[in-house]
């Protein structure tokens, strides 16, 4: 793992520890404004708020990291299956000593979760049912058993049954300090295990066959990851509820997946996004009494995902559209330059200045369109208008000439075009009348190094397949 990524991950984990040790101080301020509430919320003054916030931060951290592995392995909905499958385990743990003992519930839920994941794998291996059906059956089947057990428990004559319903929708305020301790331990275990076996987890995530060939214990690693995942799901249930845990596993990781191609950065980003969503959710639900925490954490995560989807620098929709538009503009500009070169060539390179009308004929376009193209050239500093100021409308007789950079660029494009045509006829055995359309497209995408290599391979040619001169490299580069 990349060193910086490692350090950031570890710092994030350590950051939570001093907060845990922070002494309790009960504040009795009655807030008025939104900002005051925000300050009060994030200043860790009230113990209940503090536990809730630390809890959601840790949950977001854990789920973000572990969810990343699910997302890259295309197993996202296994998290959903897991969160439903732990329900009978929760009920069983509850039955164990008839109270909300976090450890009994934790053990029962973990057992049920791992059994559920194992069953999904087993059904997939031994029958011809597909993964989605297997997951659906385990999800709904286990949940059904859980529902049966909870309805029975509700009829049983025993102690404190309240709190069981928190498992369905989740309330961060319901987290006890015992839960927080559990969460802290799980987060630490997660980070340590992932740091120690990062390479192994990376390989099984992307190429299981390769991992097997290397002699890695693929099965053990898989179940280790599933065990960690179950831990995380079980401790998160109380804060966000059964249905929404899967969102915490999937959404921050998916947002991170949109922003980076490197696994270690994805882990860091997913952890940060998870914590951010946790803080957002805890804060919003703190603002009013009747707002549940889980759904707001999920919406926080979804907002982050939407931002990444729209504005992510590499895979975002908006940058993609902008990039495409920029490229289309460049291609249009280059096509104009090429047409000007052809005008030049037709005059045996005697004339420098041309009329807009002539260019329009060469481009096979209306005067209006050509005028816009010339304006774009002028704007890019590649042409000069000789007649009047820039603002006025051009007539067909309006004169313009290319500047030096414009002329060089025009020569480059024509050189790309003709070299590519020659390459296709000589090296790829194309017919001479088939190469033009291909070159029309390729001329805009050839880099300087490729052009040099083509030139070398063709032994510095002078003429293209149609007998026209190829602009010389030395003539182009000033």
């Amino acid at each position, binding site marked *: 793992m990349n060193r910086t990524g490692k350090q950031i991950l570890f710092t994030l984990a350590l950051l939570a520890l001093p907060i845990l040790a922070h002494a309790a101080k009960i504040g009795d301020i009655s807030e008025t404004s939104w900002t005051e509430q925000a300050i009060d919320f994030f200043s860790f003054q009230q113990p209940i708020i503090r536990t809730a916030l630390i809890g959601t931060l840790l949950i977001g951290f854990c789920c973000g990291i572990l969810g990343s592995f699910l997302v890259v392995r295309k197993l996202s909905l296994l998290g959903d299956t897991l969160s439903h499958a732990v329900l009978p385990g929760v009920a069983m743990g509850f039955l164990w000593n008839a109270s909300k003992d976090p450890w009994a519930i934790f053990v029962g839920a973990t057992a049920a979760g791992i059994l559920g994941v194992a069953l999904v794998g087993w059904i997939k291996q031994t029958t011809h049912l597909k993964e989605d*059906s297997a997951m659906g059956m385990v999800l709904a089947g286990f949940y059904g058993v859980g529902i049966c057990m909870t309805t029975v428990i509700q009829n049983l004559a025993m102690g404190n049954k309240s709190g069981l319903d928190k498992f369905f929708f989740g309330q961060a305020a319901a987290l006890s300090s015992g839960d927080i301790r559990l969460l802290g331990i799980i987060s630490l275990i997660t980070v340590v295990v992932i740091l120690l076996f990062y390479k192994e987890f990376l390989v099984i995530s992307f190429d299981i066959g390769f991992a097997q060939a290397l002699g890695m214990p693929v099965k053990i690693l898989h179940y280790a990851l599933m065990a960690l995942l179950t831990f995380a799901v079980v401790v998160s249930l109380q804060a966000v509820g059964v249905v*929404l845990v899967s969102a915490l596993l999937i959404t921050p990781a998916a947002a991170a997946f949109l922003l980076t191609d490197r696994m270690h950065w994805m882990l860091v980003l997913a952890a940060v996004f998870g914590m951010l969503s946790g803080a957002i959710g805890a804060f919003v639900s703190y603002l009013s009494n009747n707002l549940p925490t889980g759904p707001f954490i999920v919406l926080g995560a979804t907002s982050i995902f939407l931002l990444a989807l729209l504005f992510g620098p590499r*895979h975002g929709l908006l940058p993609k559209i902008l990039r495409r538009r920029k490229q289309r503009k460049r291609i249009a500009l280059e096509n104009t330059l090429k047409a000007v070169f052809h005008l030049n060539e037709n005059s045996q390179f005697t004339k420098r200045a041309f009329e807009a009308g002539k260019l329009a004929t060469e481009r096979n376009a209306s005067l209006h369109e050509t005028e816009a193209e010339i304006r774009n050239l002028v704007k890019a500093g590649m042409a000069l208008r000789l007649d009047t100021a820039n603002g006025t409308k051009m007539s067909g007789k309006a004169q313009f000439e290319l500047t030096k950079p414009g002329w060089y660029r025009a020569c480059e494009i024509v050189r790309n075009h003709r070299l590519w045509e020659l390459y296709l006829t000589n090296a790829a055995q194309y017919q001479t009348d088939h190469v033009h359309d291909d070159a029309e497209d390729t001329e805009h995408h050839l880099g300087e190094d490729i052009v040099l290599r083509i030139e070398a391979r063709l032994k510095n040619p002078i003429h293209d397949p149609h007998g026209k001169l190829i602009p010389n490299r030395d003539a182009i580069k000033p």
Partner: protein
Amino acid sequence: MREHFFPDFDWHTVFVQPWTEYGDNSFWIVLMGFLVSGTCGLVGCFVILRRMALVGDAISHSLLPGITIAFLLTNSRDTLPMMLGAIAAGITTVVLIEAIRHSSRIKPDAAIGIVFSSLFAIGIILISVFADKIDLDAECVLYGELGFIPLQDIAMFGGVEIGPEPVIRMAIIAVIAIGLLIAFFKEMLVTSFDPGLAASLGINPTRYQYGLTLFLSVVIVSSFESVGVVLVIAMIIFPGATALLITDRLTKAIWLSILFSLLYAVLGFHLATWLEASIAGGMTVIAGFIFGLVWMAAPKRGLLTKLVKRSFKRKTTSP
């Protein structure tokens, strides 16, 4: 209130009393259970073949905001607005999943997860914000309970009482499902197994895909009241999946899935009576149990069957 998780099993109270003392009620509840799981199972056979099981899960969860918004707009719990809201939610889910898939490199499984959890979260928030105005209980939507369906609303037809309204409504949906199945069986068969062949035969696979999604939403929304949004998934997947372990023929699988649905309804009802548990939960437990049995001991492909066959073969071939 009782002491033990498993009460003493008494044949009379579990199997006889419900029919002798509460005959009418028991009959309608079991019939409703059968109609729900039968209709779900019918649609489910195709859902499984098209690998849409988890899309079904997503649709069932996003019904929550759909019916909540429908309720806020119309302020009534009538069937029609609820149905429309749910169908709109189902379509929104599928469209959003496809949109995320096509506009980014997010894989379909992650797209499903993101969409349904967000919609579900919106639903829960709406319910908690408008808690005083909404006569909807999120937990009720989530669990549903066959025992609580309003049996006292009797549907009349031509002045004759024909039965409790919810049961009759479900029966109508079931009849529509059977009608659609008969009308479009060939098209559904081809598009499920070989979309390419379907397209070359002039059958538009996408249209049938959306048609199935639409009908799936209708079935889910008419079932959730009885079994809840999660267990409706069990009712959709279990009958078909169990049947497909026994046979490869779709027609046979459909008949078998109807048979299984009947078993779920009857046995689930008695299991729930014995444990005093949720009937939908009981039906799901039975469904899981039957799947386990078939998985182990199906005539051709059961794990134990294979094991026995293999050892038998070894015995006969060894010298």
